[in-house]
């Protein structure tokens, strides 16, 4: 890496003295330019905020309307709060089941991803052995391949193992596809942890396994949280894998269930129920994001900035 001076720094340094001596800091000119820019940029910022929030508010509003109102006056406020849309979606449209399936799949695969990912990352980060680099790049390489390419043979692998249309099959596949990023992220994290503590524990007679679970894993908590949030969002929002590997209506996850619902809506036409389902699926993650905003943002950006 080469250290180059930044372009502005050399000429910029003497500048303050000059302007101070002149007694005319370049304020006035800036201010008028600043104001135009301020109005303009504030405007755009606000417009984008509205563009982001409006569709979401519109969905919430629509979920309380009846079908006639949805079609005749899409933008008017609901005349009364039709909570039966919500209860219909929850029970008849089976949103409750989809929620349960999603929680099971994501819960299982999140725990599996974190445990298996940190085990592999720990070994790859802190032990020298032949083939270490090769295995690391094998894992990391998986990040840049399009999943779609593997999807066709994957379908038959999963089918041959009798795991098609099962929750546990989906969990195993989710774990496998979450490993590349998880291993990549956690390997660099484990490398950054001080080794003295682990060595001391080992000298005291702790086995490698014990050292890992009782000392290294707790020390790695911030990294686990970041990568956990990243994986949680990815797995909760997964659409392609379940669409291909899980066509049993009993085991549908949320995204899949909603898309199926909207397709069959074309013939039945319970739009209000469908909107209620959509909002139902949106609200928990949005609420969780607002509460854990800081962790979510740092978890997601930490991964991308690496």
């Amino acid at each position: 890496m080469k250290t180059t001076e930044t372009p502005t720094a050399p000429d910029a340094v003497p500048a303050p003295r000059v302007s101070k001596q002149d007694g005319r800091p370049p304020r006035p000119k800036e201010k008028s330019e600043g104001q135009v820019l301020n109005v303009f940029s504030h405007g755009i910022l606000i417009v984008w905020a509205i563009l982001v929030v409006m569709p979401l508010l519109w969905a919430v509003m629509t979920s309380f309307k009846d079908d006639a109102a949805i079609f005749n006056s899409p933008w008017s406020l609901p005349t009364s709060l039709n909570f039966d849309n919500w209860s219909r979606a929850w029970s008849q449209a089976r949103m409750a089941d989809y929620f349960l399936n999603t929680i099971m799949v994501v819960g299982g695969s999140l725990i599996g991803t974190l445990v298996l990912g940190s085990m592999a990352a720990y070994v790859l980060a802190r032990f020298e052995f032949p083939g270490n680099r090769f295995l690391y790049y094998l894992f990391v390489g998986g990040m840049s391949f399009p999943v779609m390419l593997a999807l066709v043979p994957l379908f038959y692998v999963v089918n041959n193992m009798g795991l098609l249309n099962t929750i546990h099959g989906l969990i195993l596949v989710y774990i496998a596809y979450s490993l590349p990023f998880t291993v990549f992220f956690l390997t660099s994290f484990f490398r950054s942890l001080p080794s003295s503590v682990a060595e001391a524990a080992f000298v005291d007679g702790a086995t490698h396994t014990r050292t890992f679970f009782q000392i290294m894993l707790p020390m790695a908590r911030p990294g686990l949280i970041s990568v956990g949030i990243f994986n949680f969002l990815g797995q909760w929002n997964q659409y392609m894998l379940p669409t291909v590997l899980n066509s049993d209506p009993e085991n549908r996850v949320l995204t899949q269930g909603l898309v199926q619902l909207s397709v069959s809506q074309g013939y039945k036409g319970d739009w209000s129920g469908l909107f209620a389902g959509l909002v139902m699926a949106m609200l928990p993650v949005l609420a969780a994001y607002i509460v854990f905003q800081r962790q979510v943002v740092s978890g997601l950006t930490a991964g991308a900035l690496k």
Partner: protein
Amino acid sequence: MQHGKYRFIVGFLVIPMTLYTLFVIWPFIQSIFYSFTNWTGLSPDFEMVGFDNYSRMFEDDIFWRSLQHSMLFALLLPLVTLSLALFFAFMINVGGRRRKGGPVVSGVRGSGFYKIVYFFPQVLSIAIVALLFQFAYNPQSGALNSTFKAIGLDDLQPVWLGDPDLALWCVMAVLVWSTVGFFVVLFSAGMASIPTELYEAALLDGASRITTFFRVTLPLLWDTVQSGWVYIGVLALGAESFAVVQIMTIGPGGPDYSTTVMVLYVYQKAFRDGQAAYATTIGVALLVVTLAFAAIVMKLGRRERLEF
């Protein structure tokens, strides 16, 4: 630390490695192999056919259209999304007016609020976002057309997703909507790590905000922008465009194939038409496009590295 080392290493690696090999590596190797067969996917029998699938692909009109659309996604989407995100992030973090006694570099008022709100779409599933916008685009009673009606543009009632000339842009707009927020936050994190002295110096030098952006912020942020470009391009070639196109547009990849993309075409050939071997061939083409895209962006984007 030698005692039992290898047993431990093997013990820790065996399960993750097995899962990864079985569900990721093995299918990848297989798919390249299958692209040289005439496997239907429906029966276990197949024969080797050499490059037949590849020559068929080169003569397949729909393949070329999907390739075209995918390339458009990979080029235009990052350009629009990253430009918007850079502008927003700069305004939020650096663009604020200097207030007396305040820090030299600050964002516009309410920047914390913008950062939170802009990120909303990122936590929602792309499938749910696609469904939502499908309704917004609905020509009879969707939010868009009824807004047009309300403000007196009655004649202007596009059919959006049903219009072959418009459908692709509609789909792309949804992807922009859902990804800008993430990059605003990502670039904000990058901008926060630029030392304020550089901004102070530029400001005292009389640099306008536009100059500051192009001379200070963008060069120092270039690495992040570049990896962001690769990241969003790979997404646009893969999972994200699959979800939006498959869910939002009607029929076989939009009216008259106007929105079909490579991922969707792989999916249709494999799981709808029972042409698994041909599907994997298109998948290999997709892999080539993705890797070429990443390599080109990394190569073109290389600059002298700026350190601070």
